[in-house]
């Protein structure tokens, strides 16, 4: 019984540790439809918080990855300097003061890549591991 408990605790530790290490080591690339320019972090922050809707006069649409995804979690930490709860709370207020709705959410990096490639003036993010040649990389962190 004791052995089973130790094994369980060890598994839990390994699971938590691996999740943290994945989060820490994940590199994010912000990608955009061909033709969109490189972006700095403040601009990306504004785009994903609804405070900017255009780049150089071009209306753009941003897409998120759905919650409970490590790539989204790392993107929020690195680019927006907030966690899931703060981001959700921010959009809850913004939605109910009538100043916009959160970005469209896609399930995976693969879907994000497909969406960005098939829709003009769109911006999203993926893990660098899911990056492939030919993507328009706007920022990397």
């Amino acid at each position, binding site marked *: 019984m004791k052995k089973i408990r130790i094994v369980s605790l060890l598994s839990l530790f390994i699971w938590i540790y691996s999740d943290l290490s994945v989060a820490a080591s994940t590199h994010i690339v912000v990608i955009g439809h061909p033709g969109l320019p490189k972006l700095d972090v403040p601009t990306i922050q504004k785009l994903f918080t609804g*405070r900017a809707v255009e780049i150089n006069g071009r209306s753009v649409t941003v897409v998120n990855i759905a919650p409970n995804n490590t790539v989204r979690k790392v993107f929020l930490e690195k680019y927006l300097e907030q966690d899931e709860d703060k981001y959700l709370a921010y959009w809850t207020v913004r939605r109910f003061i009538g100043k916009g709705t959160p970005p469209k959410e896609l399930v995976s990096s693969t879907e994000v890549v497909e969406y960005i490639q098939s829709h003009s003036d769109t911006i999203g993010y993926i893990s660098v591991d899911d990056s492939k040649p030919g993507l328009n990389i706007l920022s990397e962190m």
Partner: protein
Amino acid sequence: MRHLTATTFVLLTLATPPPAEAVEFLFSGYGTVSYALSDRPYAYQRSIDNHGTLLSDTTLGLQLDTRFSSNFSATLQGKVAPANDTEKQWDPKISWAFLSWQPANSWMLRAGKMRVPLYLNAENKDVGVTFDVARLPAEVYGIAPTSDFVGGSITKSWSREEGEWIVDAYWGQGNTDIRTYLRDGIPGTIAAGEHYAPVEIEARGLALTYHPKNNDTYRVGFHLATPKSANNTSWAYDVAEVPYNALLAPGVHYYTDSAPGIKRYNQVNMPILAFGTSLNLPEDYTLTAEYFHNWVQGEEALTVDGGYATLLKKIDKWSPYVTFAGLRSGSRLLKRYQTLNASSIPGLLPGATVINASQRALADAQTAFDQTSWTIGIAYAFSPVSKIKTEWTNVRVGEVPGFVDSPSGNGVSNQNVNLLTLSYSFAF
């Protein structure tokens, strides 16, 4: 009619089929179930007494956002909440119906039915999960029964190295009902109890908000409300002392608001100055404070000042807080209430019953406030969209009843009212 037109316009826009790929429908909703109980048999803020009520803050709302493109959208929000124009009933209504257009990063234009950005939480005051206190302080948020209007608003923002500046300007028209509670009524003329007068309000204003990089908030606003009687009645802001009958009872006087020389209005201008701040302090403390000052143009002595300060600490999912709030009308109005409340003629004189009742009715009709309150409370967030809260408030009612419905006889003054609130709020 204006409301109907604006709502219809937005509904038609929602129903217009744009290119299928471009449009996106987003449903969301919010709700609060709130139970409030006081230690007094009389009602505070219309419905809270020692029997307890769900009618003070319980609200359910649904919102449909239609995103036509990244910079053009329509919002429709309906809610069920306690009615503004009757007691103990629920009122389903369209609270928001507007179109938003963001032609550039720093501009947002909206047209339709929306809410005046009067106070820090004015626009989201129905959405309990967006703040931690169980009840927004009545001394500020309880004054305006509604702040929805039909019109337009323009928002302009400036991003600077040190933070972001935002200016909101709006202009429009709304409807509301002004509530008066008469403890005794006037025999044969007007019944005791609550009375609602329909009012149209033209509202316009400017609010300047500054968010430094640390997410503090500073806001100053100047608003001008022009209430106008919607049923062709007029009202007075003054009373005059008139003799009862110089022959029958020399030296006996009483007060009336319909004597010659008293100005009557069917519309007035009411400027409002509002200041608000929310500061993120060390050790996860937050200090939120708001203050407003308003007056009636042409009757500048009739002023109201209100404000509060809330100190809150975040401890993981818990948010204990303490609030001090105050609301006070100008001294001239407070004195007038006391004069009218104490005014009476000898009961043996003909017509004394009606005249004495009219003195109390005139006193009750003065929209005067004088109260302070202390609140301690705590919120627990299951998640950012699910919160349970409770708070205890001690209201010190001063010289005038204010939010209290005085029972028959003498008006309530210089008493304490204790309130207990338990609420659960959610959004999805």
